[in-house]
């Protein structure tokens, strides 16, 4: 068994949008739909002011708040515990209760297969739009198609500051499982007890841990 997840280090995120564009390029999501967002936060008063960026995406919860309110069986867990939405079984036409049930606000509705350019479908849109169903709810699936083929999610690979680590939580000796078991990586909202697979490095805790030093070899399986 495997349980795929991420550790995200906001202290390394520079808010550059590479993850967002990598996701767009890989998954051809529609205009206005993004499976990952970056929350920017500014605190303090000039010149004692700080700015932080936090990428937020589907947390791949084991206790899925979205699934619990889904009137059909559209939401399931696939290989490695990745939460999947079957667009064919998603029938609420953009008004499903899952949208508000998700505490992270990462579910998005496909408002229709509108091309980015007026009256013109680019070659890649023509090819990729087939998998997007109008009215269906969509979200990050950790690039399921890549992950099951042994690759990393596209955002993880693209991130110029290596702020994201992909791994298998069940691989006890792996970097990801180690970060979590040592308490250095925690859920974004521990209070929700939703048992997510996506974790965030505590500010400071990641520093010096060495895990994110991009000079380190990537786990060989990826």
């Amino acid at each position, binding site marked *: 068994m495997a349980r795929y997840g991420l550790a995200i280090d906001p*202290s*390394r995120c*520079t*808010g*550059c*949008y*590479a993850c*967002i*564009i*990598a996701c*767009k*390029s*890989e998954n051809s999501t529609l*205009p*206005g739909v*993004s499976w990952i967002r970056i929350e920017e936060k*500014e605190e*303090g*008063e*000039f*010149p004692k*002011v*700080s*700015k*932080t*960026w936090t990428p937020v995406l589907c947390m791949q919860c084991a206790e899925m708040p979205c699934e619990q309110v889904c009137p059909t069986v559209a939401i399931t867990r696939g290989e490695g515990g990745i939460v999947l939405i079957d667009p064919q079984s998603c029938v609420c036409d953009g008004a499903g209760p899952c949208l508000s049930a998700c505490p992270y606000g990462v579910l998005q509705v496909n408002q229709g297969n509108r091309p*980015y*350019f*007026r009256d*013109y479908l*680019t*070659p*890649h849109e023509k*090819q990729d739009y087939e998998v997007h169903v109008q009215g269906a709810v969509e979200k990050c699936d950790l690039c399921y198609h890549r992950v099951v083929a042994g690759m990393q999610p*596209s955002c993880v*690979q*693209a*991130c*110029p*500051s*290596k702020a994201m680590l992909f791994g298998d939580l069940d691989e006890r000796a792996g970097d990801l499982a180690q970060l979590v078991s040592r308490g250095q990586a925690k859920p974004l909202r521990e209070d929700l007890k939703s048992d997510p697979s996506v974790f965030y490095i505590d500010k400071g805790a*990641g*520093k*010096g841990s*060495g895990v*994110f*030093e*991009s*000079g380190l070899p990537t786990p060989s399986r990826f």
Partner: protein
Amino acid sequence: MSANRTERIHSYCIHCAALCGIVAYVKDGYLVKVEGDPNSDNNAGTLCPKGLSAKQEIYHPGRLKYPMKRTRPKGDADPGWQHISWDEALNTMAARMNEIKALYGPESFFFQKGSTGGSSGSEWYRFFGRLSSLYGSPNHGGTGHICCYSRSCPGLPLHFGNRGLHPSIDYEKTNFILLVGYNILHTEPPLARKILDAQQRGAKLVVIDPVLAPTAAKADIWLAPRPGTDLALFLAMHHVIIHEGLVDADFLKYWTNAPFLVRDDNGLFVSSDGSPYLVWNTKESAPQPADPWFPSHVEPALNGSYSVNGISCRPAWQLFTDMVEACSPEWAEKMTWVEAEDIRRVARLYANTKPASTDWYNGLHKSSNGYYTAVALALLSVVTGNWDVPGGLSFESDPTFKDVKGSQHLPEGWINNSLVAAAGFKARAYNKEYVGPMNLVADAILTGKPYPIKGMLALASGMGTSNPNSKKMMDALKQLDFLVMGDIWETPAMAMADIILPCATHWESEFVNYNPPYLMHRRPIVEPQHEAWPDLKIIFELAKRLGFGKEFWDGDIKKAFNTMLEPFKVTVDDLDASPPGVRYAPPPQPYRRYAATDEKSGKPKGVATPTGKLELYSEKLKTLGYGPLPAWKEPEPGPVSTPDLFREFPLILSSGFKPMHWLHGQLRAVPWLRECDKEPSVWINRRTAQKLGIPEGERVMVETPKRDGTIQGNVVLKAVLTEAVHPQVIYIPYGWWQGCDSLALEGYGSLDGSANVNNLYDDSFTDPVSGTIGMVSYPCRVRKE
């Protein structure tokens, strides 16, 4: 899915100078996606938003599609663009260029190249230079005056001999990173992980920037000086370093001109028969020739006052010390608004941490005192012994491709006939810099002085928005007899063009380059869309029609690449035979190059400066009419230097850092990118906005004066309220002109009412040495629209 039909093409992205290796997946001739190449040493599989959005850029329906000529007079709202063939375009260009040369001389035709980016200008500029040289024009435009003048183009050759070299820091070895006006985490994406790794390893990151840009946000210490006053801050750091005895005196004595004796009466070096430079030997209390290098019985004095043959003189270091004596941290606090204690803390930390590196960029080159600011900053590395050591400030050149710029084709004495020399930039003329600031061209067009400029070929240059004083530039372009502009998009300045050319994106063009670990032939990953041509093909085909076919390899670009590749003893065919390319390891970066032994003389090589040493006192600048030391000078305009302008325009306008997703003025039409950053904005401090009654998101007008106090121009922007800037400073991101049809966002134009920050600047506040223009400390006022 028929994955077997998908071809993987190894290439590299040249949207910026970082050159990230990429893998393009192409299916049935169409680009499926671009990813970072995991085997690339630069980016290790990562890629920035610009590269990742390749397919939206390539297949964008708003690109220029075919060559067009104007059919209505300039000034008409509608140029009446008419589709013409490439043949007609190129034949017309060749005929008009020959005509202008015959009537007014070759110097009256200007060759303008914009930045790197969409069309890979940082590669093909070599052949563009070759074209202008063969044509005979010493007038060639670039972007150094708004970008990297005293960093790398040309750098600071008079002081450090680093002509055309760029700072290169070993981030695995450095323990201190001092970055100035340089949002490196976004502008050099492949360095982001390396710098964050260094910080994680314990290296300190100190960022000096008036704005809390992303790099500043990651700093261990962020200092936000009043825009344009960094020089005061660096002089105060020197003050602390000298006062606290943190100077590397041995380094100064042997490898710099610090001990050279300077005459009190005229500021020139003391010389005596046969010895152009003297030092004071404290061992013998007597003068001693400084040249060539000191034997062991010489202990040169750094301080003191001496008399040589009746001439009173002091070592250059004494003059430098005397100058910074007045620049205490308390003094600098008044100039910079940075607390004296913070300056002290950074100075101590910098001088006590070894090795310490520093680097700087655009922020220092949009200022009327930028030249000396960069000198003072680089000198911090020199006085602390961090110069050209591993983990310190080192410089490197690009891998040595054979020079094809062809400057030998220019007529004798060409530099004296250049606009740069005629405008009185003596240091630039001395350095034979042919790349002049664009505002000199606008002046020459409008005034006919020093001689008229009648025609221009501009490739990849958004001249209507990229240079300060856009109104003047547009007026000037309108006056030209013949203007040809090539680009990927229709830019505002094209309203003044006679012919416009559709250029290929770099994804659709080819070149040869070194993208570690490979020497690569970058092939088009897809064919150019519509009738677009790569800039390189335009240059070669035009050259043939101008009669330079022989010098342009008879139009065979592959042969030209083979010439470039000669030093590597490979050919394009060799590179093509083993994709992604031929592995190449450049010789390891040498350090302490100044100390390397010259084989002929058996003496240390020194550096390529007038004295052969690192120069903290530039006699050459002095003889050219400039100050020999980086003395404090207020930025112009500024609240101190031009207080009258600030009475009515009380806020300080700054513009600078570039986020990763934009390449200067490019790519705003790409919808994926635009969804992340929709609208042009102005950052206003919350407290200031409250006083002005401006709520978040309000549309506001920013207005500025000319030098004489009359209105220069205005822009209209969305207010972003923030604490990332000082209450008296507003910050406007640059490069906004383009619409994004997909998101129903219209273009903004380039003049009044636009979003173009360059419409706000009078371009007459120039740095006398470099010609860079005072843009970081500009008076302005803000009101609700």
